[in-house]
């Protein structure tokens, strides 16, 4: 009997959701917009211009708040990134609001989960666009950034992405897309230069993830090394690999005197362990992953003895700006910040700066101001827009000491 009741209850529940799906009319838009807006804000005017957002004048919500969209991978295969993104952006907003807001208005975030997959990502950005935001930060995955860039150029508001694929500038030229992290080109080149010039290595092993992040860097490093006539060996692995013995052994067998590792968090930790276990005892230059606290947590300090890191950001940078940020973040969330937090924290400040310089919250004015950014100091570095709307042009070299990143130097790359 009990089971039957449950059954009909569930059936009814599903029926309701189905009817919601079928009705299709205008009522549904309003309802779901109201729903979706509710938790993110309290009484904002965000929903004011619903229904006309695709017409192109998405921005400029008149009211006492300025709405900024956030596309973050909260669910899916990289949930850490999403959480950090949200934390970083939220912290910046809180700080700015506490200090009086921007142009006398309070900032407000509208966060949508992009799930780390294309369809959900597209829907997330469409949803953000329909809320009447003045700008959007995220997504971080290059694949998603490429998938949604068309949407924002149609909706006409600036988007600040932490994606790093070279394709974002080589295959498209979107006036609305700004990049707030150093391109893989810059970082990878930095790694290659450091390996050959500072460490004096002559035979370099490349160990990269086959995803956009790793393969993008690989192309850059291979081109650089070929140009300089330096010998190299390339090995790759896939996201989610559980064993890298064969790649490590192949590198070891080739007799490399340095390895450049370019991959994500989980794989970096796995590589660190297997390099150590299998006795690949050469200097390693890692991507930004290796200097993040979550990867340090996964590694025994001795695995990282001879590791360097090419990164956007390290908490060990003793500049005052960084240290203030680190302390504030720690006070708020009880953890050290990492790359995604600092990226989107800085991005919000960049937006604030642009809005103030533009003196308006009109998306195209913001865009113009963003494009003129020159020398804004933020924890992640110095923002200076170039012709391709890239904001960061350098990277930090760290050395791993006792399993923690130690700031060595900040290198500016001319491009």
């Amino acid at each position, binding site marked *: 009997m009990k089971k039957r009741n449950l059954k009909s209850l*569930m059936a009814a529940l*599903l029926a309701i959701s189905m009817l919601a*799906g079928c009705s299709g009319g205008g009522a549904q*838009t309003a309802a779901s917009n109201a729903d979706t807006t509710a938790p993110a804000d309290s009484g904002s005017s965000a929903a004011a211009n619903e229904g006309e957002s695709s017409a192109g004048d998405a921005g400029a919500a008149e009211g006492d708040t300025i709405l900024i969209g956030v596309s973050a991978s909260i669910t899916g295969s990289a949930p850490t990134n999403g959480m950090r993104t949200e934390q970083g952006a939220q912290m910046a907003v809180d700080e700015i609001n506490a200090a009086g807001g921007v142009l006398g208005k309070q900032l407000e975030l509208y966060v949508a989960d992009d799930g780390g997959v294309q369809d959900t990502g597209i*829907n997330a950005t*469409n949803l953000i666009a329909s809320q009447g935001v003045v700008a959007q930060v995220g997504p971080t995955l290059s694949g998603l950034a490429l998938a949604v860039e068309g949407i924002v150029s149609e909706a006409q508001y600036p988007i600040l992405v932490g994606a790093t694929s070279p394709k974002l500038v080589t*295959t*498209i030229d979107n006036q609305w897309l700004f990049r707030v992290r150093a391109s893989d080109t810059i970082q990878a080149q930095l790694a290659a230069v450091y390996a050959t010039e500072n460490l004096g290595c002559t035979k370099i092993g490349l160990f990269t993830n086959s995803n956009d992040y790793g393969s993008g860097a690989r192309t850059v490093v291979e081109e650089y090394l070929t140009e300089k006539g330096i010998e190299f060996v390339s090995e790759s692995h896939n996201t989610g690999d559980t064993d890298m013995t064969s790649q490590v052994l192949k590198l070891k067998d080739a007799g490399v005197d340095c390895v450049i590792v370019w991959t994500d968090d989980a794989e970096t930790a796995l590589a660190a362990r297997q390099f150590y276990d299998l006795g690949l005892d050469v200097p390693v230059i890692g991507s930004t992953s290796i200097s993040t606290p979550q990867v340090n947590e996964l590694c025994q300090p001795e695995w990282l003895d001879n590791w360097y890191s090419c990164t956007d950001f390290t908490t060990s940078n003793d500049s005052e700006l960084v240290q203030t940020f680190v302390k504030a973040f720690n006070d708020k969330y009880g953890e050290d910040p990492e790359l995604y937090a600092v990226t989107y924290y800085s991005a919000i400040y960049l937006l604030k700066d642009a809005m103030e310089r533009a003196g308006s919250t009109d998306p195209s004015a913001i865009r113009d101001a963003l494009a003129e950014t020159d020398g804004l100091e933020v924890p992640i570095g110095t923002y200076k827009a170039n012709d391709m709307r890239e904001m960061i042009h350098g990277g930090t070299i760290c050395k791993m000491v006792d399993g923690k990143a130690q700031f060595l130097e900040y290198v500016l790359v001319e491009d």
Partner: protein
Amino acid sequence: MKISAKNQYLWIGALFIAFAAVPVFIHNNYYITILNQMVINMIVVFGLNFITGLTGQMNLGTAGIYAIGAYTSALLSRNLGISPWLTMMAAIFAGFLLGRGLGYPSLKMKGVYLSLTTLAFSEIVRIFATNLIDITGGTQGLNNIPRFGIGPFMLDSNVKYFYFILLIAVIMCVLSIRIVHSKWGREFRAVKDNPDAIESLGLDIKKIKIRAFTLAAMYGAFGGALYAHFNGYITSLSFTTDLSINYVIILMVGGIGNILGNMIGSIVVTLLPELLRFLGDYYQITYCTLVLISALFLPNGLVSLYGKITGLMKSKSTSEGGES
């Protein structure tokens, strides 16, 4: 319990008309995009319905098929400049070959083997798509996949594209209905019903299954191609096992083996996660729980509710409508 065939077609027709009417009232790109996704999903699921719905063979390789359709059409049109009309035909043909090629080993055997082979196949496709970077662009994807036009009329907006694929969905739906109602549809259902009896009637069960699988692959590849041209961008990140599973969920939630069910499933499953976004952090877990509940308590899908709700269907409607 069951909807009579005639009623079912009325509902299908009504749903399509409702679909066509939506863009008149809603101009929000968010919803238009979801509509496009719904209709593409619908086309794929019309196909999956043949093998998994009617014939009862569990296919977990839709993502691989979909990917091959998408890459075939995208690469041919983007890199060689061939008209997308032709490349979409090529994608369907690729689906045909795939159905034949993959159907043979996996359909020789009964039970879970097809699920496992198709799952393995889908993973193989994904790994190749990820690593053949020079061709597929890997996870960085392929962009600038051209949209196309009908004569001088370019499908350059999402609304226009929506009407185009809606038209295709109608055609595919009519084809589906005709196949379901033909002797082939009867054979498909017979395989699911009692596979042991088929061969003694002079029918080659393997051929029937391969035919159903090939149809599924052709619909799937076509859906993939439409998807590629709709988004203008594809990445190997999209074609995961989760995608294959999503199609089976659509099939299951709507009602297995029922074309109206396929449509309802596409609508609900595409829209539900979006509607649940207001739950914030809990929206995915809520969505999954709802689907789990529907698997356990609503095995005949949402279409079966129709009968339950009205409760008045005294028609001894036979299974002619393609209901299982």
